[in-house]
């Protein structure tokens, strides 16, 4: 009951946050220089043409007035119409969302696998050269941002040893039988492993580029947390019972060491989602981020607005999910 209450409270604060984001973005993108109408019209357009289009998109009204109009639409589920494509913003944005979600989650999974493996190996072999090598690797992974990893990967596996696709989401000539835009998930559910492989091979490098810095963070945090946990009395007690070092790490230390790591990884995951904007551009991946850059270049104000709101929804959703997972994993909170 109390649990439900705290979830409702979180939903309320989330709504307030989103409203704040909407207001700020709405005003900022209208104050910065650059006029969407000027971008649309051919060079020879007259003043009258400009005025007519400006009025058509409601841009002649004051910013607060525009905001009210936009808000009354949003309340009815209408996020406006994209200026460049003339399509409803909501429809555009939702059509790209699956691509970005699949990319981000794939990156997260890769980061957890690599980072978790490194942390566990480093803990198992603490004090050895392997642990020192892992520390150095973490430092290197962290000192290079994700988009540079993207470039490095393109050079390595796109140019030098071309084994992965460097652009797009799927080979364009393939006929796609999908009814949603969750290509990777749907190909798996339809047991179309040929398509799945093609999509995964497109996704692999951008996902890896996003994953490398997060993997290093997970590896560092989890290793540190494990190191502290391994000194605790209940771990020592398990050792005296006859358990192997590996068992002690996995069964006794890991479940407790994960908790402090989890919240930080949640925050880092939202940074990773932010990183998709540039990474998608770099790999010509048809996701939200790529669309966001186009929208900014074209000063497509309604579209920018919609994308930013969607990113904000994703961020707060991830944070909520992390808090719920934390509560579910921690017996002290579960019973409180």
């Amino acid at each position, binding site marked *: 009951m109390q649990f439900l209450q705290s979830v409702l409270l979180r939903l309320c604060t989330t709504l307030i946050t989103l409203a704040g984001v909407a207001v700020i973005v709405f005003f900022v993108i209208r104050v910065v220089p650059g006029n969407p109408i000027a971008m649309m019209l051919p060079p020879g357009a007259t003043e009258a043409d400009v005025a007519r289009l400006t009025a058509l998109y409601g841009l002649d009204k004051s910013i607060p007035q525009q905001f009210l109009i936009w808000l009354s639409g949003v309340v009815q589920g209408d996020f406006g119409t994209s200026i460049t494509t003339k399509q409803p913003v909501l429809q555009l944005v939702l059509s790209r969302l699956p691509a970005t979600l699949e990319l981000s989650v794939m990156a997260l999974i890769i980061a957890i696998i690599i980072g978790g493996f490194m942390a566990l190996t480093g803990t198992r072999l*603490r*004090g050895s050269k392997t642990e020192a090598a892992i520390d150095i690797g973490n430092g290197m992974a962290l000192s290079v941002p994700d988009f540079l990893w993207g470039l490095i990967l393109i050079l390595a596996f796109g140019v030098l040893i071309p084994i992965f696709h460097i652009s797009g989401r799927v080979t364009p000539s393939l006929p796609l039988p999908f009814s949603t835009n969750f290509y990777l998930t749907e190909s798996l559910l339809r047991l179309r492993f040929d398509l799945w492989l093609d999509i995964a091979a497109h996704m692999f490098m951008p996902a890896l580029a996003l994953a490398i810095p997060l993997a290093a963070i997970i590896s560092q945090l989890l290793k540190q947390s494990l190191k502290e946990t391994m000194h*605790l*009395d*209940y771990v*020592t*007690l*398990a*050792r*005296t*019972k*006859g*358990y*192997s070092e590996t*068992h002690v790490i996995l069964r*006794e230390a890991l*479940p*407790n060491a994960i908790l402090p790591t989890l919240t930080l990884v949640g925050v880092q995951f939202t940074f990773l989602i932010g990183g998709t904007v540039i990474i998608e551009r770099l790999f010509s991946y048809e996701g939200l981020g790529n669309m966001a850059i186009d929208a900014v270049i074209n000063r497509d104000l309604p579209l920018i607005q919609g994308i930013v709101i969607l990113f904000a929804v994703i961020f707060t959703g991830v944070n909520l999910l992390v808090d719920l997972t934390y509560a579910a*994993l*921690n*017996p*002290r909170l579960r*019973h409180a």
Partner: protein
Amino acid sequence: MSYLSIRNLSARLKGRPDQILRRVSLEVAAGEVRGLVGESGAGKSMIGKAILGTLPQSVEITGGQIILDGTDLLALPAAQRRTLIGAKCALIPQDPLTALNPSRRIGPQITNRLVDILHWSRADAEKRARDLLAEVQIPDPERVMRSYPHELSGGMRQRILIASAFAAEPKLIIADEPTTALDVTVQKQILKLIAAMQARHGTALLFVTHDLGVVSKVCQSLSVLYAGYVLEDSTIPEFFHAPKHPYSRALLAATPKYTDPDGSLTPVSDAVIAATRAEVEAADRSAHV
């Protein structure tokens, strides 16, 4: 025939000359309760850790033998040593608040050794855990087994840890200051419980403590440790009536109840400490020649 026999065990900090244990020899017969006393930092816990194979990575054993039931533990491969210790020894830890895994229920924490290491069936192990919890006077064992550690008091948790230590009927239990972390009122009960369990199960016990009063009640023999060196090895009557070493005499004089209760307590004098230090160092030198 001793169940545990430690012979000339030496240990030091890795890469440093400082000795943490100096040719320690110590015997615990089957079913015997041996006290291990000494000031803080004397190395009492290190001896327990050396037996159980949980020495910190920074400490290395430089010589000697730890013979458990006829097998030299230090000569065994690590995996074999672990399972042997898990089957024949157990630890009653000092602090019940940190010795239980906070994210696991009590039941599995008692039964895991029986199921995973000794290959009991789960049902047998759970029955055994219930019986033991009842034996250490825990009301409603069923409910306790489903609880998490944070739901139980310190005294309850120490009872659980005692039950857990006896679960596999070990032949040797090491208790490292099992009551110092508890309330004074609970200390007495826990002490009585350990003594009663030991007597009923006939387990040998190595009892680490600061408290000579406790030693006189629980133990049959005693080793006095100073700077990693065994100064005295006596039976309890010997020790309390005719201590062999000047440091032991000073230790007794510094303890209430064994001198005149109204008389003043004399702390161990600097002169005795200096003489004891000199003796330990001289012994070190002669051992290295």
